[in-house]
């Protein structure tokens, strides 16, 4: 009997934050779970026929419809009188969630299905080769927001998905990070204890797409949080109930670790703009710790 419901032997890259987070999510939810997955890295590296990493019922249909497929699963379980005992999780990457899958996800939220939606946010279309998505950070160098004479990378900041989720009036919205595994477990557990639609967005490290060594993956994920660029927040019934406090580090410390931001190090004016994004987050969510924080 395997100890995990997300078995090893899959083909994720070394240092993949999505593989790490997906395992934490499903192991926290337990065997009485049905997963609907959008097309993307996770589905590709974990279900290559005739093998599958999944120890729970798992369905992959298309790129953009996991939220709707999960809605059907949930409706069927309700009809069968089995919904009380079975968790339904829909999940996808940032493109499948914030771009092509946003309509289906909005529908799932609005209809009030009892489903946890998890977005593994590695901040670009990594499965197809690092193209920018609506969740790609400002100034990132991706294959469709390349740096050049007239470009310093992606021209837009991240789409505010947690705010979009909150605007639907759903009972639970949180962000998490593959740099903080126990926080993921805690939030998944909390989310699954609440009836209705839930949204958790997990910052998922991608060494290949972010261009850094696999060995420093967790450190980089932590830096995103510690600079204020990826605030860890938690809302229940529209109210902010917790944030991860930080002693903010300058954003350069995060930017200099990754190839996707390398071009910015010689452009202090661009770094300043990114520092402003972090500062706004720190102010908005009151992230600054009064006293030093430990791990």
């Amino acid at each position, binding site marked *: 009997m395997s100890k995990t419901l997300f078995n090893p032997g899959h083909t994720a890259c070394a240092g993949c934050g999505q593989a790490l987070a997906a395992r934490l999510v499903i192991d926290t939810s337990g065997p009485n779970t049905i997963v609907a997955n959008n097309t993307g890295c996770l589905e590709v590296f974990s279900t290559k026929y005739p093998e599958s990493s999944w120890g729970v019922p798992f369905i992959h249909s298309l790129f953009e419809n996991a939220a709707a497929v999960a809605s059907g699963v949930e*409706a069927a379980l309700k009809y069968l009188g089995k919904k009380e005992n079975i968790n339904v999780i829909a999940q996808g990457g940032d493109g499948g969630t914030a771009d092509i899958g946003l309509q*289906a996800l909005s529908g799932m939220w609005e209809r009030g299905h009892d489903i946890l939606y998890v977005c593994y946010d590695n901040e670009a279309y990594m499965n197809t080769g690092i193209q920018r998505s609506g969740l790609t950070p400002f100034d990132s160098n991706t294959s469709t927001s390349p740096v050049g004479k007239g470009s310093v990378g992606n021209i837009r900041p991240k789409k505010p998905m947690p705010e979009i989720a909150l605007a639907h009036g759903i009972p639970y919205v949180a962000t998490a990070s593959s740099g903080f595994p126990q926080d993921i477990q805690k939030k998944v557990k909390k989310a699954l204890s609440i009836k209705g639609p839930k949204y958790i967005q997990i910052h998922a490290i991608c060494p290949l797409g972010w261009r850094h060594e696999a060995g420093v993956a967790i450190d980089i994920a932590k830096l995103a949080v510690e600079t204020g660029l990826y605030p860890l927040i938690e809302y229940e019934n529209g109210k902010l109930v917790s944030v991860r406090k930080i002693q903010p580090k300058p954003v350069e410390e995060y930017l200099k670790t990754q190839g996707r931001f390398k071009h910015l190090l010689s452009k202090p004016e661009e770094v300043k703009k990114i520092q402003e994004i972090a500062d706004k987050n720190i102010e908005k969510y009151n992230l600054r710790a009064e006293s030093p924080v430990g791990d």
Partner: protein
Amino acid sequence: MKQFLEGSQAVAEIVTLCKPAVISAYPITPQTHIVEGLAQIIADGRLNSQFVNVESEHSAASVVLGAVATGVRVYTATSSQGLFYMAEVLFNIAGLRLPVILTCANRAISAPINIWNDQQDSISLRDAGWIQFYAENIQEVVDLHLIAYRVGEDKSMMLPVMVCMDGYTLTHGIEVVDMPNQEQVDKFLPAYAPLYKLDPQEPLTLGPLVDPESYTETRYAIQETHKEALKLIPQITTEFNQAFGRQYNGLIEEYRTKDAERVIVAMGSVCGTIKDTIDELRAKGKKIGLLKIITYRPFPYQEIYEALKNIPMVAVLDRALSLGSFAPLASEIKAVFCGKKKAPKVISSFIVGLGGRDITKDSIKEMLRLLNTKERTLEFIDLKPELLKDKYE
């Protein structure tokens, strides 16, 4: 019991008798009366079903996909643009081998936007892996839904089925319909017993990544199942006939073809008009018949061959186009006789009734007037040349 029913209402009633656990749909004319009817039936407590009001057809198809994969009977309905918006999911449903039943209220495709009837929508989805039935009248629409559930959910099939009914003509038309009762339906259509389902007791992965080592075989398997469907559909139809006292063949219907010199091949509600025209012309001694295609996918090539091999002249009526090539039904009827010794001398192709233009007895007579020794390709009936004169210059 015989009732005077609108086509959409009749569909809502027969679907109710089939007891789907999950229904999901998005409104589009002329499908709306069907799902409004079902919503009211559920609201009145006559049907215990989860009715999921979605934000698009893409999600309607995805919801029933997820539900049927969880092991329950499902239903959806759409039309035209809605069917196209579902298209990606429809191919996926067939590939996943899930028996979704869908009613297509046939309607023209935009642009220009047009809410009236032709069959371009479902014909364009012919390659999706779905079984497709085309109904002539409201009674047939009702009956084909029962047959659709039996065929699609059969353990040897596990395929989705689309029941096509001409928009307005059948969705909004009113006819006397012999509606079965619950007991009869339950006897003919037992509860859905899925071959596989999403169940935590027995976890399985549906929809994995399949590489070149195995992909071809998944497509081959569907192709083979369609061949099997050509045998199963007549079997289940025979069972249906015995249970409900009807006389369907299941794949095709031959109307006065035995001694016919000229036969029209058509699908859907136009077959009623053609039959009337045939009766009228037969009374004047003209030997004309009709071959009605009920099952378009799988394509019953053998039955079509047998029905037409000794007919001297055949007219194929298409209510859809494959723009830039031959008409869809005509090209397949011709393909049936390719390389065969016995074949009609002439197979002429006619395009009639696009975007809701009425097909009258005169339209059929005009077609027959042009059905002579000179074979015609893509001959448009009732075309208005005066509308083609305007040009941008």
